[in-house]
């Protein structure tokens, strides 16, 4: 038995993303953000996107470039406090923002990746976060048990990995892991970028973070650009 080679040209991979697509983007702050894939999506200009990302990066980098370029209709996120442009767009009514508590966001994505429909949690049950959400009572238990949080899937996931083999097994470095594993699972088509594509067998099967069945396209980056460095403040 042998395994498929999933390496692809960056333009060809991003070309798959049409107007109106929903796109998950890995990263928590800068670490794990697929800056090169995002920049290609900016260059390509796909419009009316729904972007799902933990945060909105900082001004002038990462998904802020998509926001500034008017490509995004809706952002599903946990926190945009470091991006004043995103806050301004939201306040001006030109960007719809759905806020989700961070761990609930991660779990809604993971649940979708696990092929499940929803989960029940007591997180936020006594606050305005529960407004408008379906509540669930459990058989044999008095009172409302929790809020129903629905699975969050997407058409595409853009992933940044430290390392990949040609079949698409991925490993991440330190806190660059964050949302990438769950997003790779939850998208109908997952595109991963990395500077380090190694031959089959060069990643210890015990040290694979994202198994290749979750990865569809693999883009080789010749080098990391300046954006990958955490911003000085």
């Amino acid at each position, binding site marked *: 038995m042998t395994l498929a080679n999933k390496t692809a040209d960056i333009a060809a991979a991003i070309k798959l993303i049409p107007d109106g697509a929903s796109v998950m983007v890995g990263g928590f702050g800068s670490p794990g953000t697929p800056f090169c894939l995002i920049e290609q999506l900016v260059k390509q200009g796909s419009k009316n996107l729904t972007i799902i990302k933990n945060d909105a990066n900082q001004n002038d980098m990462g998904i802020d470039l998509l926001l500034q370029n008017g490509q995004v209709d809706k952002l599903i996120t946990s926190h945009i406090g470091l991006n004043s442009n995103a806050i301004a767009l939201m306040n001006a009514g030109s960007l719809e923002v759905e806020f989700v508590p961070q761990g609930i966001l991660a779990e809604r994505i993971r649940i979708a990746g*696990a*092929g499940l429909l929803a989960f029940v949690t007591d997180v936020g049950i006594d606050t305005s976060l529960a407004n408008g959400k379906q509540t669930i009572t459990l058989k044999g238990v008095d009172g409302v048990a929790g809020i129903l949080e629905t699975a969050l899937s997407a058409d595409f996931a853009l992933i940044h990995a430290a390392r990949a083999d040609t079949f698409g097994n991925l490993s991440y470095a330190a806190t660059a892991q964050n949302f990438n594993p769950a997003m790779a699972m939850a998208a109908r088509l997952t595109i991963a970028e990395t500077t380090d594509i190694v031959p089959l067998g060069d990643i210890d099967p015990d040290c694979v973070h994202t*198994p290749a069945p979750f990865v569809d396209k693999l883009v080789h980056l010749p080098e990391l650009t300046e954006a990958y460095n955490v911003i000085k403040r």
Partner: protein
Amino acid sequence: MSSNAKSRMLSRAAQDIAPNMIVNLGIGLPTGLLQFLPQDFPVCLHSENGIAGIGPQVAYDDADRNLIDAGGAYISPIKGASYFDSATSFAIVRSGRLDLTVLGAFQVAANGDLANWMIPGSFTPGAGGAIELAQKAKRVIVTTMHTDKNGKPKIVENCNLPLTAKNCVNRIYTDMAVLDVTDNGLLLVEIAEGNSLQDVINATAAPLILPQAEPPTF
């Protein structure tokens, strides 16, 4: 089932595996398909106990005690394999990443219902991973003897055993025939060498849609 008939069935079923599929082979007969794939065939074999990229089975003396497939056979990984936990393994299954699963059967119904985990009152071992495999793989094929050891048909109009999953089987490979589950019922696709059309009809407890021309043999 003669070992010839079995080989013919498995060899024919192996043709259902297209290049670069992700495939889960159920415990028992289905695992036997492997020997009929070319050695360098591009396919990723998944086992629900936590591996993608299964290679050849290995002898006990060479076995890694931590490395088995879901049936308990000692296996080797191919280059590019990955190991993961059970929750992730079934995330692969339920999220539709399996292109194909090959399962055994107690009964298959004309509408694709599958019963393969429980014979009430006689055998109740639990379903293991069969329910999710049957319900969630993109394509589900069954390899089974056409009749049980008492000669009773296993392909039936309606299952009377508890179902593994409804309406899930796409194709059935037996020692006697290849059958496709269609919206209109079971379509006879091929007949195994040495069997007549009437043999297949007699051994099947569901109506068969017959092809216009004489069905090819395999």
